[in-house]
């Protein structure tokens, strides 16, 4: 029997990172992700790793940039206001083509918003807030176990594509405690990081390494013009889009309405599907696991079969735009948004009964 432990989603980030061989964390305190830096501060020194509490989230992302340039596996985490501060750094890491993992535990916005959960950074995470139109793979866990498994996948994908990978968590997935099976997941071999800086005398070929984020400022090998470099990036992003789409479907085969939800709301939506199925309503769930690349094709196929769509999300309506892109105008798209929260206190969340009510209204 496999041993399981009871941990929070935020703590699972740390457990997964060290299982993936990551011993370097740089971060700044912000609610609701503080368990992540606290876990690393406690655990990394014991393991010979490095934890630095940074002077700001710009410090976090730029230390991550420095760490990534040495070729080690490295990670940072933040919540929504800190995510804003990181954007120039993320754009630069994408431009320099370095691998790293960034965890965004969403809280309410805009601005300071609220310190509790929300799903209001969907666009900020999937479209990138920094300049230049770069693309990052965005993974969205819906359980503590999935936080653990996707963090390990994130390190693999970052190394595979030499690109930042984002985990988009939220205040609920970060704070809930669930059973976790700790394991090291093997995703297969990766190329050697012979591009890393370590000192010219330690390079196998004795030649200097230059890690640049401004490829159009001074063009150089292997890209002789700025556009050559951008062609290379386009090709890489296309390869990610073609090969890295991940999603889960539940009861979608005969569904007339398909719910689309991610993160904690996907758990809620699944309960609503169960309630609907008990009353013989043909309802299913499509849960994107990668928010970029998004499962547009799967949504399009269902739209062509005549399905209706209901995007359920704890925001004013962001994910719903990707659903609309997916259906290509061939199906109805409805939205159940943050206004549907049950509010016994000033926090509140979307509950299965409310999603079910919306399903009944649409069928």
């Amino acid at each position, binding site marked *: 029997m496999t041993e399981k432990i009871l941990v929070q989603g935020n703590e699972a980030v740390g457990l997964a990172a060290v299982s993936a061989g990551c011993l*370097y964390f*740089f971060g700044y305190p912000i609610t609701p992700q503080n368990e992540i830096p606290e876990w690393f501060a406690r655990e990394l020194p014991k393991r010979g790793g*490095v934890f*630095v509490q*940074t*002077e*700001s989230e*710009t*410090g976090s992302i*730029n*230390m*991550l*940039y*420095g*760490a990534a*340039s*040495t070729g*080690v596996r*490295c990670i940072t985490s933040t919540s929504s206001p800190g995510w804003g501060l990181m954007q*120039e*750094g993320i754009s*630069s890491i994408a431009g*320099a083509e370095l691998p790293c993992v960034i965890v965004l535990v969403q809280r309410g916005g805009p601005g300071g918003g609220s310190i509790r959960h929300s799903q209001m950074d969907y666009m900020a995470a999937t479209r990138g807030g920094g300049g230049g139109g770069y693309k990052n793979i965005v993974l969205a866990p819906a359980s503590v176990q999935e936080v653990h498994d996707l963090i390990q996948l994130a390190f693999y994908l970052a190394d595979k594509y030499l690109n930042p990978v984002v985990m988009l968590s939220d205040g609920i997935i970060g704070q809930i405690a669930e059973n976790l099976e700790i394991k090291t997941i093997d995703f297969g071999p990766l190329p050697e990081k012979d591009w890393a*800086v*370590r*000192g*010219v*005398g*330690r*390079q196998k070929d004795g030649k*200097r*390494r*230059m*890690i*640049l*984020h*401004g490829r159009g400022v*001074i063009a150089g090998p292997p890209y002789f013009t700025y556009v050559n470099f951008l062609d290379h990036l386009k090709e890489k992003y296309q390869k990610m889009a073609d090969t890295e789409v991940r999603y889960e479907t539940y009861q979608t085969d005969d569904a007339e309405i398909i719910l689309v939800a991610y993160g904690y709301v996907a758990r809620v939506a699944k309960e609503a599907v169960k309630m609907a199925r008990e009353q013989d309503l043909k309802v299913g769930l499509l849960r994107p696991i990668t928010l970029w690349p998004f499962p547009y094709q799967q949504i399009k196929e269902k739209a062509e079969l005549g399905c209706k769509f209901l995007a359920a999300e704890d925001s004013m309506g962001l994910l719903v735009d990707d659903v609309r892109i997916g259906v290509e105008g061939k199906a109805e798209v409805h939205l159940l948004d943050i206004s549907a929260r049950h509010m016994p206190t000033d926090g509140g969340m979307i509950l299965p009964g409310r999603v079910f009510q919306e399903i009944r209204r649409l069928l």
Partner: protein
Amino acid sequence: MNNSIVKERAWGRPELCLDLPVWGLYCPGCQHPVGARLIAEVLDELGIADRAILIIGVGCHAFSGFALNFDVVSSCHGRAPDLATAVKRIHPDTIVFSLQGDGDCIAIGAGPFIGALTRGEMITIIMLNNTNYGTTGGQLAPTTLMEQRTTTTPEGRTADREGYPAHVAELAAGFKGTAYSARGALNNLANYKRTKKYIKTAFQKQINNVGLSYVEVISACPPNWHLSPLESLEWIEEKVIPEFPLGEFKNVDRIE
């Protein structure tokens, strides 16, 4: 009589300064490449060039980074001390240093700079101070002199609007984790030699794992000062050095 001839190189480009067209990006009379040359000579003499990692910021200083034979990472504007922190913590046996301009270091980069000073990182920071933003065409910097005209202080810097010049070497010396802080200039041979000694001492502090070391180098910017290269050297003597005194502001062998 010993008839073997000992050849000693007395002139020329240090091997660490690669023969690349990048040097040609510098304006006539600019002293940034002189600063870069001193760094190359010092790292060569200390025997640490093959384990050195250079972090450059954004500005004219960065051109040198493209032409020095070190492993180099180019950072976002002002963020070099953050990158240097991570690289040094991961590879404590390397020599990690940032090369930055005054705007890069103490305007946009003030946060990372103060952060590194506060933590007493075992890195070396070299700041080339030309009292303005050279790359973007000569705007006000924190180090711009009183009454100095720039494109964003067309009537000259005034205390009411822009405050007073930032004294960075003195600031760095005020932090406990700082092992060394000095300010040099390159406007005459004596200052040139002293500045080289400062840079050497700074790197020696890192080799000895004492603490953070900082050297500020006053660097002529003739086009943006609207002076000839020769007049720029005189202006450094008459105006810049009186505002920014040269010398060592902190030099300790142990932080205690």
